[in-house]
């Protein structure tokens, strides 16, 4: 029951936060924060009941005990749909990320003057619930359900509490993700029906669908259905255009959740579903997918450089960074996959922090335009220093999580496709270019002494400190995360043999 409770706590907590507004408008955020922290401690405390050696077990479909936790309930027997949740190392890592960033998102909304705090916090918690559900669902129908449902509160967050262009941005966000979701729904149903025709029994369970046999054309189409849905969410080039708009217009907490967590569901889907469900089709498609990844890295970076809107710049940097994830997944070897997961986590923290800074700037200066900033270090040295740290993280400074991620991806990719690696590595240069120009335009330069700006307070600094520590930890000693994820990769390798590790490149290089 632990897994459904994880989701339930957030759902009910959301309602609670909404309700608590009756007493005082400052209550909801407090309630929301407590709910998320309670959920996190509930998760961590219940993990202590899992035997330590289980963390190293390779999760096997047939054996629920090989997963860290699992839960099953018949739901819609007509179609063999079950309320099936399971957690392995990958899910665990991402859920912890979700809850930590969720708490940070709530903190980031602390000083924002949002009307209707109650409903605002409720939407945040419901989004988190949806995301946690996505990371846990092992029934494809259920997965789709969470996948879509998390969009609604997110949509409301942008549509109600967004900035000047919220109507367009929220609509674009919703239509892009929803439409691609429909393609995935079709693919899911086709897959289930193929399975049903083969076995005679309806099932949407991931484990039952894993080895559905189908001819390669069908597999190719179905793979594409999943792929597009996930790549839109990731977002990968050329389906990324919703992201800058959504990010720019969302309230700070929305941006934090969107960038920090929501994008990761796309990456998670690619790893968990796209490749294992359609191994041959996916690997055949891999060169194109990787090409899109590389294109995203470069394109995102070039566009990031051209932006004068702080949030837009960070948004495009996300496009660039998530290209690495796409590369990592489709290079499909242990190094690259570990890198992709690491990138998900590290990018979650670094970008969330940058959005928080952007939000803080907007709140203080009522603009996101960097042309109107400059010299902010003078007035807000703490914010400047923190921004500097995360800029460095985002440009791949060794010793911080993002570097580990990008290096692992490149290392894995190099063994598969050296030339693509060379192009992708250009992303390291371009990242430096856009990150530093952002730093320059916002925080360096001549300060405008007529401004009165308050620096980060202790609450914000605490949130930042959490993320700084997390990134340093990931950069200096990522082993715990790698160890959690390794069994998952081993289990994936059972479904889809990993791409050969070493020596492949000899011929290609010579």
């Amino acid at each position, binding site marked *: 029951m632990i897994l459904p409770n994880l989701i339930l706590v957030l759902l009910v907590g959301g309602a609670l936060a909404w309700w608590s507004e009756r007493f005082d408008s400052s209550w909801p955020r407090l309630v929301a924060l407590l709910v998320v922290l309670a959920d996190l401690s509930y998760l961590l405390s219940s993990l202590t009941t899992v035997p330590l050696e289980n963390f190293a077990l390779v999760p096997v479909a047939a054996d629920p005990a090989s997963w860290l936790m699992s839960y099953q309930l018949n739901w819609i027997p007509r179609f063999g749909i079950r309320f099936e949740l399971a957690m392995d190392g990958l899910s665990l890592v991402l859920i912890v990320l979700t809850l930590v960033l969720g708490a940070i998102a709530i903190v980031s909304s602390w000083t924002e003057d949002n009307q209707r705090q109650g409903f605002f916090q409720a939407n945040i918690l419901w989004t988190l619930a949806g995301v946690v559900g996505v990371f846990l669902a092992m029934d494809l129908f259920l997965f789709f359900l969470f996948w879509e449902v998390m969009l609604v509160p997110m949509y409301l967050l942008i549509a109600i509490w967004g900035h000047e262009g919220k109507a367009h941005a929220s609509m674009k966000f919703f239509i892009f993700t929803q439409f691609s979701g429909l393609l995935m729904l079709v693919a899911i149903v086709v897959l289930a029906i193929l399975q049903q025709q083969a076995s005679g029994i309806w099932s949407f369970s991931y484990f039952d669908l894993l080895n559905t046999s189908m001819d390669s054309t069908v597999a190719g189409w179905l793979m594409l259905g999943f792929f597009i849905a996930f790549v839109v969410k990731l977002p990968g*080039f*050329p389906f*990324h*255009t919703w992201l*800058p708009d959504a990010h720019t217009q969302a309230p700070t907490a929305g941006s934090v959740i969107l960038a920090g967590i929501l994008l990761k569901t796309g990456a998670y889907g690619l790893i968990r579903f796209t490749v294992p469900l359609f191994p041959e089709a996916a690997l055949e498609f891999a060169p194109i997918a990787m090409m899109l990844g590389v294109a995203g890295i470069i*394109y995102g970076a*070039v*566009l990031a*450089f*051209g*932006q004068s809107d702080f949030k837009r710049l960070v948004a495009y940097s996300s496009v660039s960074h998530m290209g690495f994830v796409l590369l990592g997944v489709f290079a499909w070897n*242990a*190094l690259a996959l*570990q890198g992709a997961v690491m990138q998900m986590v590290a990018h979650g923290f670094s970008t969330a922090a940058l959005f928080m800074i952007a939000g803080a700037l907007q709140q203080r200066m009522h603009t996101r335009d960097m042309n109107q900033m400059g*010299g902010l*270090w*003078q007035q807000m*040295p*703490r914010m400047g*220093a923190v921004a*500097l740290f995360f800029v*460095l993280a985002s440009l791949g*400074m*060794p*010793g911080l999580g993002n*570097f580990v991620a990008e*290096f*692992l991806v*490149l*290392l894995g990719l*190099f*063994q598969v496709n*050296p030339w693509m*690696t*060379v192009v992708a*590595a*250009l992303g*390291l*240069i371009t990242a*430096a270019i856009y990150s*530093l120009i952002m730093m*320059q335009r916002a*925080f*360096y*330069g*001549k*300060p405008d002494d007529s401004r009165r700006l308050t620096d980060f307070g202790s609450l914000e600094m605490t949130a930042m400190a959490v993320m700084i520590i997390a990134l340093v930890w990931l950069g*200096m*000693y*990522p*082993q715990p995360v*790698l160890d959690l994820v*390794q069994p998952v990769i081993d289990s994936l390798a059972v479904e889809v043999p990993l791409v050969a*590790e*070493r*020596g492949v*490149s*000899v011929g290609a*290089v*010579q």
Partner: protein
Amino acid sequence: MLQTVWLIPLLPFLSAVLLMVTAGRMPRPLVAMLGAGSVGLSAVVVLLFGMQFMQAPEPYTLTLWSWMRVGDFAPQFSFYIDQLTLVMMAVITGVGFLIHLYSTEFMEEDSDYSRYFAYMNMFVAAMLILVMADNLLLLFLGWEGVGVCSYLLVGFWYKDPANGAASRKAFVVTRVGDTAMALGLLLLFTELGTLQIQPMLDAANNTWVSGDTLPALAALLLLGGAVGKSAQLPLHTWLPDAMAGPTPVSALIHAATMVTAGVYLIARTHGLFLLAPDVLLLVALIGLVTLLLAAFTALNQHDIKRILAYSTISQIGYMFLALGVGAWSSGIFHLMTHAFFKALLFLGAGAVIHCLHHEHNIFKMGGLRSRLPVAFWSFLIGSAALAALPFTSGFFSKDPILISAFEYHGSIAGIGPWLWVGGLLGALLTAIYSFRLVFIVFFGEANTEPDRQPGWRMAGPLTLLCVLSLFGGWFALPLASVFPAESAHHPSMLIEGISISIPLLGVLVAWLVYYQRKVSVSRFTDSPTGNSLRQYWHSGWAMDDLYDNLLVKPFVGVSTLLRGEPVDKVYNGIVGVCQLVHRGLSESQTGKMRWYATSMVFGLIALITFLGWGI
């Protein structure tokens, strides 16, 4: 004692973290104590460590923790100390401490005192990790770390956008090299299965034969990193601009330590480079061309720091030349002596600037010999060593390089003497531009009056560095076990004589032109050719313009062109089509009932026709 080696980078690192976290709330004396003291303490630990180490000079490895482990890829957080490392550590902490001490006075009036020391300490820590790393990934961590600190310190005075531009340029240009290096790491791991330097070199030796493509490629990629960091052609353009930072920063980072990291990298992985003789020759050629180019440029500058910057590029060119011709120890030796005398020169320049209201233009100085005696002596000794006048430290390190170049026999036979001639030309130019500086700044008429004299914290380090610059060449470095044996030098007396006399000739020329003003160059420089040549040299062979037009402008142009998000046009097009159809269909809803009835009849007819088609 040996186990405490981890203290060496940790001390400055902790100090840096402490300074950052307290964020300027610490009293200044404490900041100074912490900033300089931590590095000093590090230096002491290095000294103690070195003494113990030299008793049984075996490479010492200390593993702190396993960094990450994915399959075979398992780089560790571990240090590898041998004589080479020790030399580097000594230079970094020793010279570093002196510069820190100097800074405590130099930066005293700056409002961001503690931020400065935080960055500086962080730099020292990163640099130490760079040289102590036992694997290339950890080395890369230090490598990027020093890059970032360099970026931060060049742009330390952030309120001037020009400084920001200079710091970004420094970072981005070196990042180009770093990216090549990262690719080299990928290649090396993929082919050899490890990034731990010593096992990797062994594996390279076992797997590859000299002259193979792969080692050449790997070496080339590492060389890319090295030229970036060490400001060699074609990635040297950032260093002159990097002078925007505080002068002690230039002394520490852009003269004594960081910029020599490329030299260290090549020396450290010499086993790999030996497998790629062509690349090694390329190293030598890059060094030679760079040293000449930079020397010519230095001749034409009037910013005191830029002169020193070009001279740094030029001197590192010598080190590359040394590495390229296989004079490994000489290269490292020159690295060390260069650290002494170039730090001295920079600090001396700093003293001049400090005391002259931040004046950089040498033509606005002059006659400072008696008014700033400390600076004058520093400069005189530093320039002598730089010009490699006999019996200064620079002489002892540069001379073997030229000799080795002369005796080079690598992949292209007979090129050695030419390398030697180039090196000599460089030496001549070096002597000329360094003494041009001395004569213009310290002799002649006084233009600007100093408003203060350096205090003991500035004078002390200067004095110590003077001593090192003069006598630093008298003791030999214990590097024999690290590098392959070099051929014994038995040059003819003639060669030796020429090598010694060339710098003297240069000083003479400088004396004639810039002190006696007997020989006027203005006739030449004022002629059209001369003028354009001067302009050309002044701008550093117009490399900046080249890159600007070739890379920067296109990039900015493309990003401006794309900033409106062209991909969105596709989606907007779809939306547009939908809206168009919507409008069209809405028009059809006229509200006229007869039209509605007609449309129904048309529908009926269409349906009948369609169904009747089959019959």
